[in-house]
């Protein structure tokens, strides 16, 4: 009988962008079990709903996470708008879609850079973040902020983008495409990188569905769940196909993210082509009454924002179920049977966003 030892991983670790703790049970160098422990970034944002009126609560929700902040704000506004039966003007829906796709570009570039850094490939990490700077500059110019945008509000958006800015964005998308293809080419075709990712952290399709994997973690195993197909915001008017891979290992999940980068630039081009003229907001009167669960596709998967109101200015309950929260059981399953040196690559391949998980 081999001896078992327990090694703590995190909360401080060079590969982790955010603190999560895992107790790894090892037999020699193989991981036999993993016990997650979260709670290092808990700020009790759901409890603040008693203290901030519903129009101001959007600023709190946006600051749940720095990487996926735009889509959190969008989802909150959708939940309240559905409860109050508000019709958002079409131009605002298209602007929200453009903002979401830029947010997805910046998040995937960040993740791919951190994954390269987790393997020790710092040059590629810097290369990805250099491309990300272009995206952040465009977001600051058009939406108002690099990381926290403050654009979505109940009833529409706060800032408009004029025709000249949209033309500049369209011209820059070609440059972005070229740079992204170069970087993702290194990640997907270099032999040394492939050796560290192929066959590692395999998640079969049946397990992925049962454990509730969402986003690129699930789509890398062949589970077709992409909430953009539901058609919220302006996605109903744009044609696209979700990206799927079947291998279920770290390489497949990374390949899904690389292909989604190019899909995002295609969606932004379509939006810029189809955006109509018109107002960008509607007036909001009254208070939310009822309940609704708004679901959106964040860069990491499906996020659910459940809101419940009883007719007052303050919401009664607000709950966020983020994609990393749903992917942690899959992570624990994925770690079993692999060596200690593969653990950082496996954890970074599910793209943990712990500040979302602990709101």
């Amino acid at each position, binding site marked *: 009988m081999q001896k078992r030892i327990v090694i703590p991983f995190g909360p401080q670790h060079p590969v982790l962008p955010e603190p999560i703790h895992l107790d790894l049970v090892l037999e020699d160098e193989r991981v036999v079990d993993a016990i997650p422990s979260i709670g290092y970034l808990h700020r009790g944002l759901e409890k603040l709903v008693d203290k*901030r009126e519903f129009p*101001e*609560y959007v*600023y*709190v929700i946006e*600051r749940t996470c720095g990487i996926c902040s735009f889509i959190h704000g969008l989802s909150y506004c959708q939940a309240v708008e559905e409860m109050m039966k508000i019709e958002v003007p079409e131009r605002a829906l298209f602007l929200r879609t453009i903002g979401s796709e830029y947010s997805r570009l910046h998040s995937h570039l960040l993740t791919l850079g951190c994954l390269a850094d987790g393997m020790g*490939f710092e*040059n*590629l990490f810097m*290369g990805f973040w*250099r491309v990300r*700077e272009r995206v952040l*500059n465009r977001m*600051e*110019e*058009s*939406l*108002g*902020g690099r990381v*926290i945008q*403050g654009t979505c509000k109940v009833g529409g958006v*706060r*800032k408009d983008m004029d025709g000249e800015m949209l033309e500049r964005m369209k011209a820059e998308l070609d440059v972005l495409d070229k740079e992204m293809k*170069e*970087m993702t*080419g*290194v990640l997907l*075709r*270099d*032999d*040394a990188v492939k050796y560290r990712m192929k066959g590692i952290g395999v998640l079969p399709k049946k397990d992925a569905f049962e454990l509730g994997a969402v986003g690129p973690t699930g789509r890398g195993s062949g589970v077709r769940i992409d909430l953009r197909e539901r058609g919220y915001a302006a996605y109903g008017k744009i044609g696209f196909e979700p990206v799927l891979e079947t291998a279920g290992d770290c390489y497949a999940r990374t390949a899904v993210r690389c292909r989604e980068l190019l899909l995002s630039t295609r969606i932004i081009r379509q939006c810029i082509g189809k955006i109509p003229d018109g107002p960008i907001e509607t007036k909001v009167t009254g208070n939310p009454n009822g309940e609704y669960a708004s679901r959106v596709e964040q860069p990491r998967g499906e996020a659910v924002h459940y809101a419940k109101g009883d007719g007052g200015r303050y919401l009664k309950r607000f709950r966020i179920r983020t994609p990393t929260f749903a992917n942690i059981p899959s992570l624990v399953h994925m770690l079993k049977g692999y060596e200690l040196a593969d653990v950082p690559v496996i954890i970074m391949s599910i793209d943990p966003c712990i500040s979302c998980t602990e709101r």
Partner: protein
Amino acid sequence: MSLFRMAKTALKNLASKPATQMYPAKPARKFKSTRGRVENDMDKCILCGLCQRKCPCVAIRVDRDERTWEIDRFRCVTCGCCVEVCPVKSLRMENDYTKSTTEPKMKDSYKSTNPNIPGLKPAPQKKAKA
């Protein structure tokens, strides 16, 4: 064998100029809609207190007796909520950032220079100017 794919990009980077900027020696890059800091035009401000009620960070404090409008720069997240709700449009969002400081507190307090504030007696003459 496919190795050294990154070598071409790495050599190109060595030969070109850095992507970073020498801040604060050179000023920071900013755009028209950059959210830098909140400023108040004290000639127009009527000290109604709407910005204080709406601020999600509790950063603004309005004192009608002292006729001051105070903002805690460390608490302010430049969300722009106060700028939107101001009824006389005296608040505006500047697009350069607050300078950093080594003090533990950063509260900016401004005295009102508006002689006609509804609900308050006009300020005594010697306290007036700007």
